[in-house]
């Protein structure tokens, strides 16, 4: 192992451990969250994947995925293990600085950095890496990655409504299916695919349960904790994740019934909108909670949006299952790489109602033009709904934390003040 890689892993381990330890020490933390903290620790601190045992017959195929458009059902049905690769570490983004233009977003820089270093080792394990063509940065990243890995570009249409685009997307998925079959040597049959759909259906059902539990007046789980548990799906087998999530949900439901919560009832209900916080960049979620905000939901593609939508296959035919997958992985997705993206505004409007949101913290990752572009529309919507918005532009660098703390504190305080006046009137 090169010196550089060792140094990188040590630094990554240190910063990840700091986040995890802080979360472990939090008061009123659900005990069942321990499973997810341990999983993240093994991936980011100990650099091993607990879900990938060395089998005598050779390890199963590993398929790395970027974004949320590649159907994991197909990967499971082919007998391979899907891993989500979008990077969130500051150390990796520094390693990627020289591989991407200065204005590229840190997700892309971190992913490139980790790939080139081959660390954490999950990046080096992948037999195939799937990159959907979402934003420009991800597309160009795919090109750069292909110098180091076996990259499969999945062409995602940017206009969802047109029939031609949807048909082309379905064809892409059929192509992806045969590529997976070629990679693993396993044929994806009706039975296997139906089982994979059912497996992920159970996992998504638990994710949805968590989503609905958190709509309660006093959630028994912090937003940063829920996001971590959802995030862990990226490195886990769906079965084990589903089991752990079921237990966590049961515990949260019990705690809520008992009236136990880490939050103060008067804490402002905050939504973290915009670009996804990717572990270990847990800066904003932790900051909101530290400053007394009740982080109730986010719209992150590796958080609340990751496992929200279900696959609606009704027939046991390959055609129907493929159509259902194509719909699930394209249509309800509200990634700003789609245009028009009115769907996102409808989803935000519903989230404000469901979670009784009192403030939106709009996260812009430096270089993520598309989330920033939609800020105006989101601000207009939130003005209509009477919800204040705070835009925060940052990257993975921890240096600006003090400055962010002041701004988040002022924002939370402003909502709290508004609330107090509202109650007094």
């Amino acid at each position: 192992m090169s010196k550089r890689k060792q140094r990188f892993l040590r630094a990554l381990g240190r910063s990840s451990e700091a986040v995890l330890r802080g979360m472990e020490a939090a008061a009123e933390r659900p005990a069942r969250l321990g499973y997810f903290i341990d999983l993240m620790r093994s991936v980011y601190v100990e650099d091993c994947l607990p879900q990938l045992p060395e089998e005598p017959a050779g390890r199963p195929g590993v398929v790395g995925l970027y974004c949320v458009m590649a159907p994991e059902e197909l990967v499971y049905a082919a007998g391979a293990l899907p891993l989500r690769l979008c990077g969130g570490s500051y150390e990796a983004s520094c390693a990627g600085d020289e591989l991407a233009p200065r204005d590229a977003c840190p997700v892309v820089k971190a992913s490139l950095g980790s790939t080139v270093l081959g660390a954490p080792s999950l990046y080096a394990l992948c037999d195939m890496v799937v990159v959907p063509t979402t934003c420009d940065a991800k597309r160009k990243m795919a090109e750069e990655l292909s110098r180091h890995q076996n990259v499969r570009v999945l062409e995602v249409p940017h206009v969802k409504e047109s029939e031609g685009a949807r048909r082309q997307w379905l064809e892409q998925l059929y192509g992806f299916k045969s590529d997976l079959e070629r990679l693993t040597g396993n044929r994806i049959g009706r039975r296997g695919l139906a089982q994979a759909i059912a497996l992920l259906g159970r996992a998504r059902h638990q994710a949805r349960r968590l989503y609905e539990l958190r709509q309660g007046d006093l959630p028994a789980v912090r937003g940063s904790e829920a996001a971590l548990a959802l995030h862990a799906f990226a490195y886990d087998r769906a079965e084990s994740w589903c089991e752990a999530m079921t237990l966590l949900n049961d515990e949260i439901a019990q705690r809520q019934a008992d009236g136990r919560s880490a939050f103060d009832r008067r804490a402002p209900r905050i939504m973290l909108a915009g670009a996804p916080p990717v572990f270990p960049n847990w800066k904003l979620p932790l900051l909101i909670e530290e400053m007394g905000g009740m982080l109730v939901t986010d719209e992150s593609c590796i958080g609340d949006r990751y496992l929200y939508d279900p696959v609606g296959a009704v027939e046991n035919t390959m055609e129907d299952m493929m159509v259902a997958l194509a719909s699930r992985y394209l249509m309800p997705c509200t990634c700003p790489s789609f245009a028009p993206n009115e769907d996102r505004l409808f989803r935000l409007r519903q989230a404000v109602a469901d979670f009784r949101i009192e403030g939106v913290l709009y996260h812009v990752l430096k270089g993520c033009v598309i989330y920033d572009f939609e800020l105006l529309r989101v601000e207009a919507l939130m003005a209509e709904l009477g919800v204040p918005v705070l835009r925060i532009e940052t990257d993975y660098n921890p240096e600006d934390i003090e400055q962010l703390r002041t701004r988040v504190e002022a924002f939370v305080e402003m909502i709290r003040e508004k609330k107090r006046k509202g109650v007094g009137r």
Partner: protein
Amino acid sequence: MPVSRWRWLVLTLSFVLLTFGGLAGVHLGSYLPTFACYFVGSDTYGGACFLATLQMALAEGNLAGLFAALTILVVAVLLIIPLGGAWCGWICPFAFIQDVLDVLRRKLGIGYVRFPETLRRNLRPLRWIFLVILFVLPLWAAFPLLVPAVARHLGIPFCELCPVRYIMPLFTERAGYMGVSFGSITTFVLSALGVLFAGFTLVGAFFKRRFWCAYCPMVLLLSFFRRISLPKLKKDVTRCTRCEICYNVCPMDIEQVFLERQREDVTFPDCVLCMECVEHCPENDALRLTYGGITLLRSSRAAFSRRRGIDASQTGPREESHE
């Protein structure tokens, strides 16, 4: 019990009742706005399609006939209003046949065919043509001012073309009504086309869900009254995530329900109220069935999961069957 089971129950009972009810003394009249074929035979059927009697009345060519036609229409409309599209989704005996073929296809593991939008659009006028044939040709037969040789043998022209007329009598072995008729050139052409349509329809309904319904003039007639019909499909446009499931499960390939971003009423002209979309919609209250303003059925994630064998309070993974 999920609503689809109820629908199958009603549809099956209705098929038996309307096709064989006569044998048990059931007679619901021949004014029904649904494809319970008249040619099954009045001693056998429990009720019949009003289109046959309407054409016969029109073809009489006198005031009494026109008055009879008007009466038939009024009765049919009065029957349409309380049930709307449900006549097609829940009652039509020919829908039962098509749905049985559809189940057969699923059991054989063969996927369905979905026509591209352009083809669907191009085939749309077909039901208007059938509607014109239905109302105009009988009048031509009654008043054969032009080409009387053709007009005289028109009989009840839409029925001669209707595939149902060649398929439903198979259940009662009224062989005389089934094949191509060689009585005259007119009847030959009409019945030959009808037999051809019947063949297409049987094969089509196996591969494409509700194949015939896309061309059925009854669906069109019912859609004229959809605003005043009591059952309605409603959508909460904010709760909808546009996941496209309702389109995928729709046997009529109605795309507008998931695309709609403004209106609450999404009872689109082709809707047969089969409720597949409400049953499979994963969002709470995004889709609802209302009857005269009262909600009878609402979509929910819990029902969506239950339908897929996922128990809401389940702990740990569990084996399940996938339909």
